[in-house]
């Protein structure tokens, strides 16, 4: 009941003209960025972060959050029409979405994707409303040892879950830790790894790093791909032809709810995110769905499962982000960085200390979800034109935004140089299959990890047993060990299997 009252007051914040405009603008941009193959929510949020400098923190985060969840809507469009997911969470959507396009039912697939995204998103936001404060209350019981163990667990699981090779994920996570140790040590005042540069005294600047890693590296990747989707030239889409019949909606409702709840649960886990959510939902649909035998051949329930889950997961990722300060995905890590940039400290106290902000954001997600649903339907007739914007035009424009955006953070060319180097490094990482999202998560979480770690030791007079006395911290430590050891064991098993097959 208390949550509902707070949510209502949040609507008061969200319904101001500037916040409403921010949600609409973010929604529009999110859909467009999501629909463009190759660009994702991370790139979109990273490039638009500098635009929020002048905004009030609530307005800024409302816009960035709208970009994030609108991106989940947009990502399905290119997956359905040209078999290229706009973002990784839409990979599973392409499995049934594109066959539907080949059958001449592209409109139906697009409507299913938007409808399921809307319902999935709504489930996610309702659960966020209910679970957010509960998680925050649990978080209040966490002392420094528990917090340090939780952050370590988040870092380990993220490295493990992202990418095909957990070891590479762990290495990039360590790179994130390394970058975070640059600058003046916040507690002891020691200057570390600045190489004599005044610009590095306050540490590595977050926005140029993000723009370089996710914007400029994307520009470098886009140089290698050309989009001339000739098959789209003869495709014409209308809203009327795209609408689903009552019986069709009825048939996907159980799938949407099932996948929505599952996706939301996955979204709550650190590192799992929307991609894993849609993957699990699709697997579940294959096991229990009414049309499980035809899944992958072009059925709307396949699109519905993937889309409901990835939107629910995107909303779910906000719960640990706001209540515990633990981002559930790379984009959530950028949002966390943005929050800290505005002086807000996500964690259990945020619900108490910045209640207006938190509930304003949650309320804006309800409104934004409706706006994005309407926009995603209205945009259907224009999608073919949107997807045919040449990459050749987009690349120099994104490069320009990368340079200008990183300069505008501190009005310094140093940041532009830093952005460029970060972009090259990220491109090399991507080329050799090193996931870069864990690096960002580690970079954002390390200062808090270092602080809580020190506090825990100070409280125990330097006795490490503090991490094993608390059942919560101990649970996280057991999980950390399991996450680190399991890839080793799996590799050993696979090697043994290979050897036995060879012999």
């Amino acid at each position, binding site marked *: 009941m208390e949550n509902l009252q707070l949510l209502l007051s949040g609507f008061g914040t969200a319904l101001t003209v500037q916040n409403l405009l921010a949600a609409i603008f973010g929604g529009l941009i999110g859909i467009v960025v999501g629909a463009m193959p190759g660009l994702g929510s991370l790139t979109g949020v990273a490039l638009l972060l500098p635009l929020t400098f002048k905004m009030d923190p609530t307005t800024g985060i409302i816009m960035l959050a709208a970009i994030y969840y609108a991106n989940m809507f947009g990502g399905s469009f290119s997956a359905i029409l040209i078999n290229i997911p706009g973002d990784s969470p839409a990979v599973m959507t392409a499995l049934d979405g594109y066959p539907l396009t080949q059958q001449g039912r592209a409109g139906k697939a697009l409507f299913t994707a938007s409808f399921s995204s809307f319902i999935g998103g709504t489930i996610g936001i309702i659960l966020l409303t209910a679970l957010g404060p509960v998680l925050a209350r649990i978080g209040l019981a966490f002392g420094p040892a528990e917090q340090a163990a939780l952050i370590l667990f988040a870092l380990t699981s993220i490295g493990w879950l992202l990418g095909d090779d957990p070891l590479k994920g762990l290495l990039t996570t360590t790179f994130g830790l390394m970058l975070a140790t640059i600058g003046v040590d916040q507690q002891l005042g020691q200057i570390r790894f600045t190489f004599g540069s005044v610009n590095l005294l306050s540490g590595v600047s977050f926005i140029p790093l993000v723009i370089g890693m996710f914007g400029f590296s994307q520009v470098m990747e886009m140089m290698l791909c050309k989009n001339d989707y000739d098959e789209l030239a003869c495709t014409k889409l209308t809203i009327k032809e795209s609408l689903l019949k009552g019986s069709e909606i009825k048939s996907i409702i159980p799938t949407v709810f099932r996948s929505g709840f599952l996706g939301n649960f996955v979204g709550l886990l650190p590192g799992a995110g929307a991609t894993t959510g849609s993957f699990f939902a699709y697997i579940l649909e294959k096991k229990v769905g009414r049309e499980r035998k035809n899944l992958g051949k072009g059925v709307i329930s396949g699109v519905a499962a993937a889309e409901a889950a990835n939107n629910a997961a995107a909303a779910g990722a906000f719960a640990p982000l706001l209540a515990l300060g633990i981002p559930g995905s790379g984009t959530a890590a950028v949002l966390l960085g943005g929050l800290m940039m505005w002086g807000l400290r996500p964690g259990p106290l945020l619900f108490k200390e910045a209640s207006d902000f938190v509930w304003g954001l949650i309320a804006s997600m309800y409104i934004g979800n409706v706006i994005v649903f309407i926009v995603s339907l209205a945009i259907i007739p224009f999608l073919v034109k949107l997807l045919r914007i040449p990459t050749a035009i987009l690349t120099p424009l994104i490069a320009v935004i990368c340079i200008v955006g990183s300069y505008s953070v501190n009005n310094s060319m140093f940041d*532009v140089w830093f952005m460029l180097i970060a972009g*090259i490094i990220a491109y090399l990482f991507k080329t050799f299959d090193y996931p870069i999202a864990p690096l960002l998560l580690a970079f954002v979480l390390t200062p808090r990890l270092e602080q809580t770690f*020190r506090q825990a030791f100070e409280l125990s007079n*330097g006795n490490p047993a503090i991490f094993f006395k608390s059942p919560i911290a101990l649970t996280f430590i057991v999980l950390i060990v399991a996450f680190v050891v399991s890839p080793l064991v799996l590799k050993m098993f696979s090697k043994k299997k290979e050897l036995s097959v060879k012999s």
Partner: protein
Amino acid sequence: MKKRFRYVPIISIIFGIYWLYFGLAEYGFWHGTAPGAGFFPTIVGLMLIGFSVWILKTPVVYKPGALQKRAFYPVIVALLCFVSIYLVGLIISMGLMVILWLLIIEKYSIFQSVITGICATVFIYLVFRIWLMVPFPKGLLGIF
């Protein structure tokens, strides 16, 4: 064909040694009853070395054409653009960058390139200079 790519782990080992040395020798591993400023750098150094050695032990399948020259064109353009910023300022440089990129790299017509370049420049000027009031460098020419 199998070939080991060693760039990332080898560079990581170099960073690892550097972080480990400074963590232990310069910043102080322990301070009173709690970790010192060198504690995390030491751990980071050890982890970088450990994970890198582990990666080096595993063979990596060579990907033909993994690194292509064309991917580095934006880097060259950006470097030229930095020189241009010191001469004609940031806003004009951005416009020139878009025009020359489309003309030379993407082989667009002069008309299309100039129109796109002007639109990009106007967008940057309105959003960043007027709205966000970012004081862009004006270069030696001192315009914009």
